[in-house]
């Protein structure tokens, strides 16, 4: 029964696009070398091409003549419950859907979305790892996977407003920009709330937060369930519609940006007048247009500093140059690049929901060692990033390995270096 449900989802997800991608694959295996889990462990099952194997089998056995023959003659395995169990671990615990594999595929196959389709099949078969499934259920029941209930949200805002002495408008009709934080920022990194509010206020932005769209995370995007993804996307878009905003700014969260900026348009109606962007892009725009001014070299005296490219914000989202432009003002002498970087940057190992799965901890720390090595090679004292999920992975990793490495959010640095214009 579980298998049938997964197969039906695989088949449902296999339209012309997915079929063409799978037909184009030559099994060259180049994608393996791009995968940080494969690189870190050498485990053949972690090769991205193997991660989509169940989708390929379902497609071939349903839609191709040779596949039907092979299946009928017993030359190719049918998908079984045991397969689902095995692949559930592979696609949820050993894949962050970072899509670095697609960068190296000589056939141009976009493997990330195909792996996401495998997760969709797993979700329909009830094969999502328990920790992740529990977090999804919390988001369904309470509106947040991390416990940001209505009460918690308001109490947190009040605390940050009072203690950081910063204005944070809430449910402001007529605001042009809706800013939505991720739950990890609200709970673990509340300094980010104050920092981003300071930046927006300094830029003179007409902005607001929303009680309805109070957090932007979308754990449905992690478990792969379209139903869940749509449910959580609607909360955000409905909140934006109610306030009549023209722009939604996703703060330092990667997967939520991918879900809202790219995936949402294929799943729900989003008013065309609403622009969706990321705080990294917005900060870059503010700097370029002179809406904010930063103290040049503010972080030059704090050792060497490097930037970690987040898969969903830099590689997927394209906000590659803005953080560098900002860091070249903030720390022109201290900023150094890790290699590889930009769109080829290696994932931190905690994305795609992996960080939420306790059983995946050894694997995510193993993958994180690649980042540690990259930072070590450039003698970095501080690693900066624009994704709070990456930031949590780095914070955990630094603790786990006992590293002498500082972890910083980009928005926090920008806020700390703001030059406040004297009141006229």
């Amino acid at each position, binding site marked *: 029964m579980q298998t049938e449900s997964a197969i039906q989802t695989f088949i449902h997800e296999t339209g012309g696009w997915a079929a063409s991608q799978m037909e184009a694959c030559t099994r060259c295996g180049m994608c393996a070398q791009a995968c940080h889990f494969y690189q870190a462990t050498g485990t053949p099952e972690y090769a991205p091409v193997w991660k989509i194997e169940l989708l390929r089998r379902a497609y071939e056995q349903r839609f191709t003549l040779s596949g039907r023959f092979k299946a009928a003659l017993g030359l190719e395995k049918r998908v079984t419950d045991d397969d689902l169990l095995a692949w559930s671990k592979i696609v949820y615990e050993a894949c962050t859907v970072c899509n670095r594999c697609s960068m190296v595929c000589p056939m141009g196959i976009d493997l990330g979305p195909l792996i996401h389709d495998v997760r969709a099949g797993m979700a329909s078969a009830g094969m999502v790892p328990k*920790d992740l499934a529990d*977090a999804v259920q*919390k988001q369904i029941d*309470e509106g947040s*996977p*991390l*416990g940001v209930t209505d009460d918690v949200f308001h*109490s*947190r805002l009040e*605390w940050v407003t*009072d*203690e*950081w*002495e910063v204005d944070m408008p809430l449910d402001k009709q007529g605001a042009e920009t809706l800013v939505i934080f991720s739950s*990890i920022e609200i*709970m*673990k*990194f*509340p*300094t980010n709330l*104050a920092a981003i509010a300071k930046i927006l206020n300094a830029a003179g932005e007409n902005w607001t937060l929303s009680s309805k769209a109070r957090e932007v995370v979308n754990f449905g995007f992690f478990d792969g369930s379209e139903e869940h993804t749509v449910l959580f996307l609607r909360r955000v878009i409905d909140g934006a519609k109610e306030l009549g905003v023209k722009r939604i700014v996703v703060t330092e969260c990667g997967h939520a940006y991918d879900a809202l900026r790219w995936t949402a348009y294929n799943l729900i109606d989003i008013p065309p007048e609403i622009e969706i962007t990321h705080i990294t892009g917005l900060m870059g725009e503010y700097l370029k247009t002179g809406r904010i001014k930063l103290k040049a070299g503010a972080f030059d005296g704090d050792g060497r500093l490097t930037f970690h490219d987040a898969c969903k914000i830099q590689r997927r989202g394209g906000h590659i140059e803005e953080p560098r432009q900002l860091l070249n003002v903030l720390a022109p002498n201290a900023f150094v690049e890790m290699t590889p970087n930009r769109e080829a940057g290696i994932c931190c190992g905690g994305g795609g929901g992996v*960080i*939420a*799965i*306790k059983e995946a901890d050894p694997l995510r720390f193993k993958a994180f060692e690649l980042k540690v090595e990259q930072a070590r090679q450039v003698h970095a004292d501080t690693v900066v990033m624009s994704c709070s999920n990456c930031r*949590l992975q780095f*914070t955990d990793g*630094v*603790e786990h390995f*006992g590293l002498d490495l*500082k*972890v910083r959010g980009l928005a926090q640095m920008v806020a700390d270096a703001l030059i406040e214009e004297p009141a006229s």
Partner: protein
Amino acid sequence: MASFELLPVEKGILRCRHTGEFTPEEVQSLAAFLQDYHGKLLIDLSGIKAEECIGNIQQFRPMMPTAAIFGVPLDAVILEITESYYIHPVQHFDNEEEALAWLREQ
């Protein structure tokens, strides 16, 4: 004088001793410290009254590393938080000895 001080207890454990109500600058400063600190905390509230610190204890709870709190009676509800992958264990104890013993076992 600051309303809190950080003192080493032993390798991997710091005592965070509170001596008065926090100013906004002290809240910000403690938040910044918690972002960079990766050891365990022995939170000593013996220098203040419970009503002076409950609000901040509750707000700092999601950011805390593994921590043992003692020094004032605290309602267990104050430390309750939705179970999640990002949180560390935090417990309240009646005295320092119990708190430190638990912290060493973590």
